């Protein structure tokens, strides 16, 4: 399949950062607090370091892979059969992600803003965005991420700056919170925030391979900083005992903003930036669902797939509507999210061992010379 999609490292980084940042908009800070208590801010640092280590390892292995994505790697390793298996696994994983997050986000917005509207109505609005994104394709979605994600992040930072007067340093004590074991458990469990790695390795052919290092590291560092800052500001505002009960942490933080008579209760700004962030998240993941499925089965056209896939996602989101928000913090399910890191790692290790990116003799010779 000839690839004509191309975008730069900025677009790719912005897109990837938003995939992690969307977790912050939902329940990530609260889950951190659940695991780490007053030491919850350590968990994002640890998971960022793990993610950095993971990516550094993968990057080394990628030298033997070239600019191939996960589907191409699986095709080179095990032929069409493995390609279809891996392609379907990724599709299912992404469909699961997009449908659970669609339900979760819709429920969040219903709680905080559209309380009189039925959940289906809220989901339908996201549904429109997802369909449009899949129609325009990955390139366009990446482009809009490049300028909308910075807006979202600035909005989030402004919210957190707004609650600085409510910070209480005592909330950070005891320093180690619930202890080493709890922090370690939380670090493994919350590594799911970086499940979006799978999308990074699907995007490699879209930007030049030399940018993989730049994109990967900047994505992990920026996302890590955002995770740390979100968790830190959350735990600084709410004491541990209160924080674990807050369902939508950033929204709850935004409610605390109060500067005089005229700047208060601006939590609706959260609704605005959260909606943009969520729409971008769903657009990206759903566009990749269509892309992966099309590529797996070497389909010439992807547009006929959009509506059926969207209906599947919509139905799945509705099926789990009662448990959506809780589903996102379900421990056993969090481990499933790790597929996003484990599956690429396995494929890349095998691919690197088989030197799938250097299939052409000329390439191998060139590498030997160097």
């Amino acid at each position, binding site marked *: 399949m000839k690839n004509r999609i191309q*975008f*730069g490292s*900025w*677009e790719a980084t912005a897109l990837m950062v938003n995939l992690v940042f969307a977790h912050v908009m939902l329940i990530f800070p609260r889950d951190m607090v659940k695991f780490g208590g007053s030491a919850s801010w350590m968990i994002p640092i640890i998971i960022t370091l793990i993610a950095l280590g993971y990516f550094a390892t993968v990057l080394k292995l990628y030298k033997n892979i070239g600019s191939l994505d996960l589907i191409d790697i699986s095709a080179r390793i095990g032929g069409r059969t493995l390609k279809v298996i891996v392609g379907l696994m990724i599709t299912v994983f992404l469909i699961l992600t997009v449908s659970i997050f669609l339900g979760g986000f819709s429920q969040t*917005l219903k709680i905080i*803003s*559209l309380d009189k*509207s039925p959940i289906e109505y*809220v989901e339908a*609005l*996201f549904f*429109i*965005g997802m369909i*449009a*994104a899949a129609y*325009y*394709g990955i390139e*366009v*979605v*990446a*482009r*809009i*991420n*490049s*300028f*909308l994600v910075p807006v979202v992040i600035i909005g989030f930072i402004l919210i957190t700056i707004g609650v600085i007067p409510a910070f209480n340093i005592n909330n950070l004590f005891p320093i180690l919170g619930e202890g080493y074991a709890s922090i370690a458990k939380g670090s493994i469990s919350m590594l799911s925030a970086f499940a979006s790695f799978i999308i990074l390795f699907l995007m490699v052919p879209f930007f030049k391979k030399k940018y993989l290092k730049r994109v990967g590291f900047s994505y992990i560092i920026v996302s890590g900083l955002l995770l740390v800052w979100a968790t830190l500001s959350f735990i600084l505002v709410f004491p541990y005992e209160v924080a674990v009960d807050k369902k939508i942490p950033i929204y709850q933080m935004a409610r605390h903003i109060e500067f005089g*008579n*005229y700047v*208060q*209760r*601006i*939590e*609706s*700004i959260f*609704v*605005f930036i959260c*909606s*943009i962030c969520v*729409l*971008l998240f769903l*657009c990206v993941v759903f566009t990749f669902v269509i892309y992966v499925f099309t590529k797996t089965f070497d389909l010439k056209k992807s547009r006929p797939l959009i509506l059926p896939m969207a209906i599947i996602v919509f139905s799945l989101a509705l099926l789990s509507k009662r448990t959506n928000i809780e589903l996102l913090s379900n421990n056993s399910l969090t481990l499933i999210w790790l597929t996003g890191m484990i599956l690429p790692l396995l494929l890349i290790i095998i691919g690197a061992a088989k030197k799938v990116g250097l299939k052409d003799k000329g390439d191998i010779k060139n590498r030997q010379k160097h």
Partner: protein
Amino acid sequence: MGLLNSIGKYIIYKEKNEKKSFVLKENTDINCEIAQNVSSLDVFDKEKLEGSFIGCPVNDDILKNNISSDIELNKKIMMTTYDMPKNSDLVYREFNITVKDKTLKAFMVFIDGMTDRTVISNNILQPLMLLSNLEIKEEVKDIGEFIFNRLLPFNQIKVVKDYKEVVSNINFGGCVVFVEGIDYAFMADTKSWDHRGINAPKSETVIRGPQEAFNEQIRANTALLRKILKDKDLMIQNVSIGKRSNTPCAVMYIKDIANDSLVREVLKRVKSIKVDYIFDSGELEQLLEDNTFLAAPQILATERSDKVALMLSQGNVAVALDGSPFVLVMPATITEFLHTTEDTNIRYPYVNFIRIIRMVGIAIALLLPGLYIAITNYHQEMIPTNLLFAIEASRENVPFPSVIEILIMEFSFELIREAGIRVPGAIGATIGIVGGLILGQAAVTANLVSPIMIIVVAITALGSFAVPSFSMSFSIRIMRFVYILLGAVAGFLGIALGLVLNSMLLASSKSFGVPFLTPFGPVTNGKYADKLTRKPTWKQEKRPDYLNTKDIKSQPKVSRGWTVKDSNEEDED
């Protein structure tokens, strides 16, 4: 008698003369090919067809033929082509030329009103009729060459060999001279007609900067650009558009800056247009643009010569059309529609200040009514309590929901704007009074709208006036209505959805191969210093990266030589 007649009219009925009414008949389909050759053919209705030949247009194939040395044939073709003498502004003048005791028949054709009569009389007719009678000392080998070299003392004269070129030149103010025995004609560029002078721009006014706008004359426009750029590499390629009108059009670019493929694409698109007539660059814009249904414009139309010159110097391509005071520049990305030429002329701190104001104005023009609806319907908690009471009190007696209220107001405002443009100048002030009184005072007094809504619409209107581009302003006005509806159906989520969809729509569109949202989406590399804000003039070292220009550098790293310490100065120290 008169009195009797008048009384008689009331007593005796007299049938009125029936008024002959005109009926627009369908054209009878004449086979012009048969009609033209009817004398040699044996066909039915021969007599009728012979008469109808005069109504047949001269076939293009005939005009493609080379000029004949038979002056009678040339005369016949010119007469038929222009349907002379029925065509009143066509001037046909026969005369004789004497060359070495030999008298040759000649005639000239030109259009009265488009040509300079004095020039034709003094520089063409007079020499041909009088100079030819002087004694000729040298031997005349070629009569045509002799006439060209000795008898036509006119600076812009050329030889044309086919009728098509003759006709297109006559249509554009040329004067053609046919001479017996010569199989070509002499074409003098005698065009001269009344036209508007170079005035100050009307739709793109600036305080700091040149005050010259284009006019309807293509040559004056190209000359303006030459005058500003003074660059030998400025290319002005002529193309004519319109099968019938042959309207002159100039494709302009700087050959060692503009991307070759871009120039080729523009030329290809311009040359490929097949219409009978073209009247304005607005029509041309619609024929050249990539996406017809996108709300945002994709080609910049400007009446400012300095703006076109600036964009040409960056590597863009411009297209000027005769008869239009607006020149098209392509490719155009979002930044071009948000900047003015004044931005380059005013100082660095001022330009960035004014650009921030402009961006805020544009955001207000696009989103304020939608945000107002979203906040008042879904996110009331955002409004400070005192303000909320004030809004509530002002809306107490208004019977409509706020969305209907704002739609009424926005529609009324658009109506006033449209009427303000169409209304004759003399009664233009009335629009302000009617609009201001009805919308402002009466509507509030009648409790049709709330005062807060008037403020929202007024601020929105001010914001929309800050949009520098006329076309872009249209786009924002249309999108504003969409945001109002989205704000009404889902609050901030609706607005966010609108922003994402709108961004996708714009990000997917291209202007001559350049994505419309460049340099923001995709983000381009390079150090192009004039994006949302502008860097100091001395830091604008590179041309826009997305234009893939041949020469990316517009100035060296150190453009202010005086900032570098001079070696002579060092010695002096």
